[in-house]
């Protein structure tokens, strides 16, 4: 079992990460990846960019612990979590989660679990930049509700 965690300002290449998850991997029949992008998610105003800040040290520990929790719940052989920080323009990639498993169900569920936990627990803060102003993003209740499905 392997876990790869990375918090970085640089972009990532989904193809490269996918290849790493698949390479020399004869036991897993499923790879699920998720990529999050910067979108115009504020109502009305046009977001031109996002700025992401994090708590260095604590973030990596939290992501590691989320990945370990996922591995105790599902048979996930490989997990890769990459999260970008800094200034990101519209359409840029923010987050990547990739998991491998023997079967697809564990891979789908594991990836979703990791994203839900990441949104609720990982120490990142987003700020939206508009043409003439900026604004910190508020925590969404819907993200908290998405966690509920893993608590049974």
């Amino acid at each position, binding site marked *: 079992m392997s876990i790869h965690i990375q918090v970085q300002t640089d972009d990532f290449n989904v193809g490269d990460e996918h290849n790493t998850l698949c390479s020399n991997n004869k036991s897993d029949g499923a790879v699920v990846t998720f990529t*999050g992008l910067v979108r115009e998610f504020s109502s009305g105003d046009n977001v031109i960019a996002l700025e*992401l*800040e*994090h*708590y260095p*040290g*604590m973030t990596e*520990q939290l992501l590691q612990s989320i990945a370990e929790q996922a591995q105790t719940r599902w048979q996930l052989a490989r997990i890769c979590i990459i*999260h970008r920080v800094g200034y990101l323009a519209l359409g840029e990639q*923010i*987050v990547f989660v990739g998991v491998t498993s023997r079967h697809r169900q564990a891979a789908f569920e594991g990836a979703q679990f990791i*994203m839900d936990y*990441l*949104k*609720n*627990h*990982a*120490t*990142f*803060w*987003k*700020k939206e930049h508009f043409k003439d102003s900026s604004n*910190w*993003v*508020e*925590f*969404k209740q819907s*993200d908290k509700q998405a966690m509920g499905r893993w608590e049974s």
Partner: protein
Amino acid sequence: MAVGSEINPNDAIPSAQNVEILFFGQLKERLKCSKLSLEITQPLTISELKLRLVSQYPDWQPWLEERELLAALNQTMSSSDEIVKAGDELAFFPPVTGG
């Protein structure tokens, strides 16, 4: 805790008598402060330490008393009754919004 006993005064290493306090996100911006070092003479709870900060920086009161504010002690999420000792790292921040 013994780590601080050989501190060279010329170093920027936190003193063993101090708690390193960090602020993130919107809170950091409102306080116009990302980090400070607070000397404590005895262990305090996180709430008590917050009161110390408010007495020292009265302008910070509305932001530090915000209900949704979270705290992490030595990089672990913590409740307000947990004890802070000299040499600890304590962070305050708003709810997270990553992903």
